C-alpha cells in the first residue's frame, strides 16, 4: 500500500518534470533543445535567452505554481464543505476578482477615473486581488457567526451571483474596447506575468501552501463531519479561517495574475483520490499539487500549440474528469 503510493509519487513527479521541460521547449519560435539548455545555463545569444528564460521559463513556472495553488485550494474546499463539486471559486474568489477587474476596466472609464494615478497604479492585477480578498474577508467575518457550513456555501454562491450581476451591468454600460479587454481577462492567461511579478507570486503561494499543510490533520478529521471534528479537539472556527486565508493566498493570487482558470481546482483533487485511492490528506495534498501542476503544464502546452486561451483548455480537460468521476462514484463524499 505504502509502496504503491511511493511509486505513484515518483511516476507523477517524473511526468510533471517532463511536462515542465516540454513547456519550455514548445513555443511559437522553434528553438532546438540544445539551445534551450544553453540558454538556461547562460551561454546562448541574447534573443534566445530572452525567449527561453524571460518568456518561457517564467510562464512554465507560473503554470506550475498556478496548478499547485488551484488544486490545493480546491482540495481544501471540497473537504471543508464536504461537497465534491466545491472548488477554489465556490466562495466567490473568481467573481470577487472579476468584480475588481470589471470596476477597474469598465467602471473607472464610466466614472472618468481611468487617468487617475491611484486607479492606474492598482492595475488589473491589484483590482482583481483586492476584489478576491474582499469577498473572502467578508465570508470569514460572516462565517464567525454561522455554525452550519452549508449556509456559508450558499452565502458564497449568492454573493458570487450578486457580484456577477453587477459585473453584467458594468459590461452592458461599457464601450467596446473596455468590454473586449475585460472579456480577454476572463479567458485567463499565464503569459502576462513578468519575472518580477513571479518573484512576488511564488512566496505568496508558498505561504498559502504552508497554511494548507497546517490544515492536513483537521481536514482528515473533517472527513467525518463537523460534530466529530469538534469532539476530536478541533477548533472549527480556527480551521475555517486558516482554510479561507489559504484560499485567498492561493486562488486569489493566481486569479489576480492569470485571470479565472476554471476546473483545475475542481478536477485535480478527484484525480488525486482516484489515482492514489486514499482519502488521507497527507497523501492527497502533495498528490494534488503534483497532478495540478502537470495539468496546468499540459494546458499551457496545448494553449501554445492551438493558440487558444488557457481557460478554455482547462475547462475542456477538467469537465470530462468531473463527469467521469460523478458517474463512476455517486457516493463520492457523502
Amino acid at each position, binding site marked *: 500500500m505504502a509502496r504503491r503510493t511511493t511509486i505513484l509519487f515518483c511516476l507523477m513527479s517524473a511526468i510533471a518534470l517532463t511536462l515542465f521541460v516540454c513547456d519550455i521547449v514548445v513555443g511559437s519560435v522553434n528553438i532546438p533543445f540544445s539551445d534551450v539548455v544553453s540558454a538556461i545555463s547562460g551561454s546562448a545569444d541574447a534573443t534566445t535567452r530572452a525567449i527561453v528564460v524571460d518568456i518561457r521559463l517564467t510562464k512554465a513556472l507560473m503554470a506550475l505554481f498556478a496548478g499547485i495553488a488551484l488544486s490545493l485550494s480546491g482540495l481544501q474546499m471540497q473537504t471543508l464543505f464536504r461537497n465534491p463539486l466545491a472548488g477554489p471559486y465556490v466562495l466567490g474568489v473568481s467573481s470577487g476578482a472579476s468584480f475588481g477587474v470589471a470596476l477597474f476596466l469598465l467602471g473607472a472609464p464610466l466614472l472618468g477615473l481611468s487617468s487617475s494615478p491611484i486607479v492606474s497604479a492598482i492595475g488589473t492585477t491589484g483590482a482583481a486581488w483586492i476584489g478576491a480578498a474582499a469577498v473572502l474577508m467578508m465570508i470569514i467575518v460572516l462565517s464567525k457567526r454561522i455554525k452550519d457550513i452549508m449556509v456559508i456555501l450558499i452565502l458564497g454562491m449568492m454573493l458570487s451571483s450578486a457580484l456577477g450581476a453587477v459585473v453584467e451591468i458594468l459590461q452592458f454600460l461599457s464601450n467596446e474596447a473596455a468590454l473586449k479587454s475585460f472579456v480577454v481577462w476572463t479567458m485567463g492567461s499565464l503569459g502576462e506575468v513578468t519575472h518580477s511579478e513571479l518573484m512576488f507570486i511564488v512566496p505568496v503561494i508558498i505561504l498559502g501552501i504552508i497554511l494548507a499543510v497546517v490544515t492536513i490533520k483537521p481536514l482528515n478529521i473533517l*472527513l*467525518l463531519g463537523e460534530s466529530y471534528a469538534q469532539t476530536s*479537539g*478541533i*477548533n472549527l472556527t480556527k480551521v475555517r479561517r486558516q482554510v479561507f486565508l489559504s484560499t485567498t493566498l492561493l486562488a486569489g493570487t493566481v486569479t489576480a495574475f492569470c485571470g479565472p482558470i476554471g476546473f483545475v481546482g475542481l478536477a485535480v483533487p478527484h484525480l488525486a483520490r482516484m489515482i492514489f485511492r486514499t482519502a488521507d490528506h497527507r497523501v492527497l495534498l502533495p498528490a494534488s499539487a503534483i497532478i495540478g501542476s502537470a495539468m496546468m503544464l499540459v494546458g499551457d502546452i496545448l494553449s501554445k500549440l492551438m493558440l487558444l486561451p488557457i481557460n478554455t483548455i482547462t475547462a475542456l480537460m477538467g469537465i470530462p474528469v468531473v463527469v467521469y468521476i460523478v458517474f463512476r462514484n455517486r457516493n*463520492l*463524499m457523502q
Partner: protein
Amino acid sequence: MITLSKISLAFDSKSILQSADCTFAEGTLTALVGRNGAGKSTLLRVLAAIDAPKSGEVIVGGKPLHTLSAEDRARVISFVSTQRVRVANLLCRDVVAIGRAPYTNWMGSMQREDIDIVNSALASVGMSDFALRPIDTLSDGECQRIMIARALAQQTPVILLDEPTAFLDIPTRFEICRLLAHLAHTQGKTIIFSTHDIDAALPVCDRVAVIDNREITLHPAAEAQSLLKSLFSL
C-alpha cells in the same frame, strides 16, 4: 462520571430543560429517552460541548467542561453522532485512528502505541477483520461498530451516542445495545445513548434518563418499563 449542574437548555426559543441536575455514574450504561423534540440530541450536544447550554454547567472529572480546551475536552468525552459516514477510499482502520487525534502531533502521525490502541478498539467491537475495508462498503450496523471503535480509541471516560440504533435492523439493534453495555461494564466507561428503541435498550442498560416536561429524571432500568407506560400513557 459526568454531572449536569443547574443546566437550562433551549432549542430555538423553546425551553427544553429548566435548571436540571443529574449525575451519570461511571461503569454504567444510560438510555436517554423522551418524545421527539423533547431535547435528547440537544442535551447530548451540550454534554459533548458542541453547543453551549443556556445556563448552568457540565462537570466532568471535577472540572466544568467549558473551562477545558477543545483538545482536553476530547480527552474526556467522545461522541458518536447520527451522521452517517460514507467517505470513499477511507479505510475503517483510518476512521478509528481519527480517535487518536487529541493525542497525536500536528500531522496526526501514529506511534506504535496509537496503532495498538486502534487495533484493540477494533477488537473490542469485533471488527478486526474489517480494518482494511473502505468504510463506504460496510453495512449500517458494521459502520456503527466502527464509529463506536473510533470513540473507544479516543480513550475517554465518557462516551455519548446519539441514536446509535437508528437505521439498524432489529437483531443489530440488540447487538449494538449489548455491545454498549459490555463496554460500560468491562471498561468502566460512562456511556449515555439516546434512543427510541425501548425494547432493545431496557434489557441491557443500567439506568434510563427520561426527558419530559423540561425535566430530566434518572430511573433504574427495572422500574423504567412501568414508568414509561405511565409517563407516555401507553
